[in-house]
């Protein structure tokens, strides 16, 4: 009786790798270890999909971005440099770039709206691991900090980061000079950074 290909029964094959840190897993991925890649996928696929969905607004487009992102990760793993940031941030930057590409190609129809299709499940609340709890706390802090920005600063940041609009497009859309848009982006990000740093200081 032939055995099933490993990609249909991954749990056993990658069991030992679950204990490794992301950076250690990436060293294995760079050597072509598909089991290590699968652990990285499992750890970060929800965050990647969530960002893609927030930007694209459609499940099918977000799924395309998700798959493309992880295939880029697999095929370009040699480009990962741990001195330049965490694996998670690297993955999310790839997601962001791919989603912006999709937005600018026009494969995502409505760049202004965020559609809740209702077909996507939130990460199950019953799986209330410590990691998820910490993730929710961090998400709450970031949302709070973002929500605390003056609306004109938050708006340019959201249009740029989540909407994929260029600073020139935003200036035209909001009928203001490009320099003002750039200044608001910088000021908003600076305030966000300081707010988060202050909250981090309080919680640690």
């Amino acid at each position, binding site marked *: *009786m*032939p*055995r*099933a*290909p*490993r*990609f*249909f029964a*991954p749990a056993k*094959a990658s069991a030992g790798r679950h204990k490794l840190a992301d950076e250690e897993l990436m060293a294995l991925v760079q050597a072509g*270890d*598909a089991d290590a890649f*699968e652990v990285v*996928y499992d750890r970060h*696929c*929800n*965050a*990647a*999909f*969530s*960002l893609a969905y927030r930007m694209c607004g459609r*499940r099918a487009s977000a*799924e*395309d971005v*998700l*798959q*493309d992102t992880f*295939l880029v990760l*697999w*095929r370009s793993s040699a480009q990962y440099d741990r001195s330049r*940031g965490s694996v998670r*941030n690297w993955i*999310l*930057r790839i*997601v*962001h*770039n791919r989603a*912006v590409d999709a937005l600018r190609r026009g494969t995502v129809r409505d760049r202004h709206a965020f559609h809740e299709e209702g077909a*996507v499940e*939130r990460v*199950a609340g019953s799986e209330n691991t410590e990691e998820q709890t910490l993730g929710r706390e*961090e*998400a709450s802090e*970031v949302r709070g900090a*973002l929500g605390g920005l003056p609306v004109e600063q938050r708006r340019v*940041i959201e249009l*740029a*980061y989540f909407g994929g609009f*260029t600073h020139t497009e935003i200036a035209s859309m909001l009928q203001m000079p490009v320099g003002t848009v*750039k*200044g608001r*982006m*910088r*000021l908003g*990000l*600076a*305030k966000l*950074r*300081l707010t*988060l740093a202050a909250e981090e200081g309080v919680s640690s």
Partner: protein
Amino acid sequence: MSETHDDLLVPKEDCCGEAAVYLLGLLDERGSEMFLEHARSCALCSDDLAALGPAVDSLPNSVPQLAAPPEAKRHVMAVVRSEAGLAMRTSPRPAKARGRLVSMRRPSLALAGAGLLAAGIAIGGLAIDSGGGTSRVVSADVAPAGATVMLHESGGHNWLTVAKMPKPSAGYVYEVWVKRPGGALPQPTDSLFTPTNSGAAMVFVPDRPGASEVMVTQEPAGGSRLPTSPAIIVAHLA
């Protein structure tokens, strides 16, 4: 280094906002290169990059967390396992084969003569389970240049994995067909697919006892009962 509010919030005349524009991903490749070149010699932009980067990296955390669809993982891992297996087999390092390597036969080009395949035929095929399971070799004729296809067979079930496959034309999908030896017409299946932007897809091929070929054609959305275009993939079952 830790910034004070004054350090970070006071607008900087010369390059104000350039680092934010770069970090938010608004510059194209050329623009990014030019900015990074500039930042190497500009203390203000260099400081902004370090100071504002964490804020941009935090933005994805503000998004409601959703569960990724499980089918996406199946697609990705199918491609990854296939490529890992190919890399292992083509590695110059002597390595102990984990699967049983069966001889590969050249793909039959007879179908091209029969008018089923377009010009520019690339040879794909050769699917071997990379994970130590049963080896299975098939051959396939693949029309799109650069595309590769693999047919995984396990326990009597077949899975087609494609990579670098162009998307079908707007309003069209790819449809999987199976053909029996000597059968004049291929039989339609319910397997319709569109590759991802990178050209990847993994498709279940329904069981058809006695089938000798698996074919893929481009069909109008929803699929067809008879092929309306030449086959762009033909995989020969043993």
